[in-house]
């Protein structure tokens, strides 16, 4: 790679010299060598700096995974990084034994899954009409949707509406309150519209000629042909629902239906005290490790789907940003 780059550099330089004198050529050659050395130093420093930042990004993950297998002594005696000298699965077996984590996991999984489906359907229904260039009233509808990106009612009115619709309660139905109020947003609609626009017009026309209605065209032709867009929206919403802790905190009033994030929040909540305090007693043996285990359990699914997510998110962000 580096060699290629240098060759290019050299040829670019040589092109610039129309009739070089021999001495000048020599000088040039020397400077090229120097340049190559400079380039190498830059390359290494640059690479090393980015590697450092990458390590900084990985550090909390590595630390939490190690902590989850560590004994409390390992945590208290750690030095920059928790090393589980007394390797134990204790935290995990404890987390699974109390049952709330697996249940929360299941609930969050279902909410994310159903939420992704509802999102994809609703966003498609909103995005498809916006691809019709000659749809009467398209401008008004666009403005109606995009305006919500700029101005909102704020937290309290939104909460009061959701509560007014009866979603804030102690029943199972509160879980629908986690999905429905958040299944559409202007940003996703714009992204999916941009994906839908890449579907060839001829496909839609031939489907129309065959007598397909608009719903059939959308679900049978446009959506499958814009699959990467659909996947992008689905992943956006899965990650969003999986990570949400704020609205569940307000909406789900019954610990029976707590999502994983809410269970985690309860586990992480500790009374605060000023100062560094005295070293915790051994009876807190599993506190740190079990918190770490709960964190690992809650981020594991995201880490597993991350390779797909990263690819599609990157594309989606660029598509959404470039043509807003």
């Amino acid at each position, binding site marked *: 790679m580096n060699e290629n780059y240098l060759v290019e550099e050299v040829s670019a330089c040589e092109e610039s010299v129309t009739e070089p004198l021999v001495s000048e050529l020599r000088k040039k050659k020397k400077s090229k060598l120097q340049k190559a050395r400079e380039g190498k130093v830059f390359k290494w420093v640059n690479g090393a700096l980015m590697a450092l930042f990458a390590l900084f990004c990985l550090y909390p993950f590595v630390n939490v995974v190690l902590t989850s297998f560590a004994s409390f002594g390992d945590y208290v005696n750690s030095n920059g990084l928790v090393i589980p000298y007394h390797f134990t699965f204790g935290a995990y077996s404890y987390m699974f034994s109390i049952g709330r984590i697996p249940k929360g996991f299941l609930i969050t999984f279902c909410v994310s899954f159903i939420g992704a489906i509802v999102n994809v359907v609703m966003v498609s229904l909103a995005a498809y009409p916006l691809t019709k260039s000659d749809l009467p009233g398209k401008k008004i509808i666009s403005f109606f949707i995009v305006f919500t990106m700029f101005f909102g009612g704020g937290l309290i009115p939104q909460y009061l509406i*959701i509560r007014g619709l009866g979603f804030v309660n102690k029943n199972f139905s509160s879980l629908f309150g986690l999905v429905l109020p958040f299944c559409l947003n202007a940003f996703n609609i714009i992204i999916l519209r941009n994906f839908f626009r890449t579907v060839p017009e001829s496909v839609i*026309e031939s489907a129309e000629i065959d007598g397909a209605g*608009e719903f059939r065209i959308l679900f049978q032709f446009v959506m499958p042909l814009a699959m990467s867009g659909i996947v992008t929206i689905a992943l956006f919403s899965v990650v969003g629902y999986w990570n949400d802790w704020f609205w569940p905190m307000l909406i789900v009033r019954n610990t029976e239906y707590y999502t994983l994030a809410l269970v985690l929040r309860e586990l992480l909540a500790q009374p605060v005290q000023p100062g560094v305090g005295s070293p915790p007693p051994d009876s807190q043996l599993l506190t740190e490790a079990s918190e770490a285990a709960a964190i690992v359990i809650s981020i594991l699914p995201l880490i597993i789907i991350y390779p797909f997510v990263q690819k599609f998110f990157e594309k989606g962000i660029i598509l959404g940003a470039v043509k807003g």
Partner: protein
Amino acid sequence: MEKEVLSQNEQNVAMPRSDGPEQGIKKYSLKKRMLRYYQVYIMLIPVVAWFIVFCYAPMYGIVLAFKDYSFRKGILGSEWVGLAHFKELFEQAMFTRAFWNTLRISVLRLIFTFPIPIIMAVQLNEMVNKHYKKSIQTIIYLPYFISWLVLGGLIKQILGSYGPINNLMVSMGGERIAFMTEGKYFIWILLISEVWKGAGWGTIIYVAAMSGINPELYEAAEIDGCKRWGKIIRITLPSVAPTITVMLLLSIAGIMNAGFDPIFNLYNTLIYDVSDIIDTYAYRIGISDGKFDMGTAIGLFKSVINFVLLLGANFVAKKINGNSIYG
């Protein structure tokens, strides 16, 4: 990959979809076109209904800021009180504190965290080894997908009084520090964790813009004797200047958003004086204390400033780039 996406987009811009045989339809009357698209309008019914219920109804709910909310009478039936809530608000020391904390945190964030993704994008752009670049990108995007709730937990473990960082400091001859409960550390913990979470992800937009730079420009600069720094300063940065401008204007427009999620997950009662912002204050007043009218007033105060700043930013962007922020 970014190039592909960009060029796809350019095609979209350059060639508006040809209407083909449909072209004739444009000649038809409005009524005929509307009839032709009746199914499309049916599709829009749930969409419009959703936006009315979950976006526009809350906007109407803003009237609550001017009313004395009573649960029995509901939003519509409650008594009007004019600007009483705002008057009360501006007299509260807690609100003033939250306001200045919001500004302070936002400005510090702008100064310290805004340039980092740009610098890193330049660095990524200079990387020659594709595999190395891809691996780095994969790693630095990862923190973006972690929620602030989890991140708060991670930070509390790392910075705990007897956690790895404090132990390291003691072994190097330092003192233990109560990071989470001493106000002076809060802003740095906040900013560093925001860099951790968002800086890598923030490079995407700049890297995409840089990948669209014509390589001939670099060749021409080389012929003119530009070294690496020259190329970065004279070509890379000016080429992405419009993107930087838009991102900067958006950040300035969002100055009232000091970030509810990070602060809510990192602060505690002991450090409210430096960490309580408008959003967290509105939450505590509105939701925790149940003063819905007051909470709405705080929210409205913030959204109005935000909206005005956004319009201003849009205006400036139009002047500078000849293009509004949102295309």
